[in-house]
């Protein structure tokens, strides 16, 4: 059994988690071009090596960040998303 260290639930079977994909910078909601959105949504780095990804612990719906190696399957560290996302995205500015 492969274990994933969840920042709030501790070590759990990895089958309790969903991988949400690479952490990428979202295009600006107001000014992002179609090209930028297509790349953000569909195009992947698909890195062979160390990646930084969104993961969710399904039973508790808790999203966090995991760094892991996609060649060795080693999970290097996990931490709350708030460690890197300091500000909420403000969508209200897009009302135009």
């Amino acid at each position, binding site marked *: 059994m492969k274990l994933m260290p969840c920042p709030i639930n501790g070590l759990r079977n990895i089958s309790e988690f969903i991988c949400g994909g690479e952490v990428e910078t979202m295009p600006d909601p107001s000014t992002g071009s179609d090209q930028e959105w*297509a790349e953000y949504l569909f*195009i*992947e780095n698909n890195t062979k090596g160390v*990646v930084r990804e969104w993961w969710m612990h399904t039973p508790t719906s808790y999203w966090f960040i995991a760094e892991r190696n996609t*060649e*060795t*399957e080693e999970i290097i560290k996990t931490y709350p998303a708030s460690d890197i996302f300091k500000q909420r995205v403000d969508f209200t500015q897009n009302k135009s």
Partner: protein
Amino acid sequence: MPFSLLKYGFSKVHPSERHFQNLAELKSSYDVVIVGGGGHGLATAYYLAKQWGITNVAVLEKGYLAGGNTARNTAIIRSNYLTPEGVRFYDESIKLFQNLSNEFDYNILYSERGHLTLAHTDAAMRTSRWRAEVNKHLGVNSEVVYPDELAKLCPHLNLSQKVRYPIMGALHHPPGAIARHDAVAWGYARGASDRGVEIHTHTEVTGFNFENGRVIGVKTNRGDIRCGKVLQAVAGLSSEVSKLAGFKLPIKSIPLQACVSEPVKPFLDIIVVSGSLHVYVSQSSRGELVMGSASDPYPLYSTRSTLEFKEELMMHLLELFPFVGKLKLLRQWAGTADMTPDFSPVMGITPIQNYYIDAGWGTWGFKATPVCGTRMAETLATDKVPDLIKPFELERFYRFDQLGERGAASVGH
């Protein structure tokens, strides 16, 4: 046992025909370099030589011949897809497959058995009807069947209502088949090699050379070579190789596992798939049950096997065929599947001039080997993307024009 076989068995030398020439040196230049010596790369080389007379071609394979996903798949061939674009494309492949043994003069053990996609929910029944209609409209034989007919088509299938997910019906696709995957690759390799194509194994592509935005050469672990055109056909390593060329793909590399049981007497002649239960099974000509499931839950460049995969697979398989509970597993393995978000491939031109791609074959690309070969050869030879594969171009993601095949490809392979 015939005496000659006995003699052969006890002999110290086991002469067998080579499938391709063993070449010592790379030439300094080729018209076409194909990166990846799996089924797709070899088929393209074969049709380049056979249909277009282009023989100054090198297939470069970093490992041994066709040891990637071509060697690891469960060999299901079918054309009962969901989108008209998909159905047309895979149907051309089936037609090529049906004549391949004759064309090669080499037996690929093509075995037409019929294919059942079981439905356990209203939603799955709806998808079955949808697929049947699209298929029939395009002349592909598919029909929705109900439990009474299923009992005849697959007498051992557990049709009891007293299970967690009772079977409501199925999509029946009589042309569904399996073939010997290695023989397909070897047949293409031999046919290409006989016509002058060079196949270099243990030759890894490590980079490319460019001039004014066009590719003009390939770097390998055995030195640099010049080339007119490049085709990349490297499946699980698609993103890594395209990065060497300078562009990214809508692909995640995710393991797909499979396993076979010990051999038993024939009892299952049809291929059985359940998308809802994430299981598919067929019985090989050796008597083994060949089994698989959906791809792994997260991306990984590794071909390890897991217990979770087998636990889930067996849990569902036992519901369909309870009596296989006593069978032992014989082998397990995995391949790295190049998964696209819409379960359709990425084929055709790329942002780099003279650099072509055949990727995004995920869990479903063995059946497409012949059609990829002919159509990629046509693309390279004519510099024009044939209409049949136009819908699969990389550009579709930038136009938000995906080709959703999830309903027909996610577990069905």
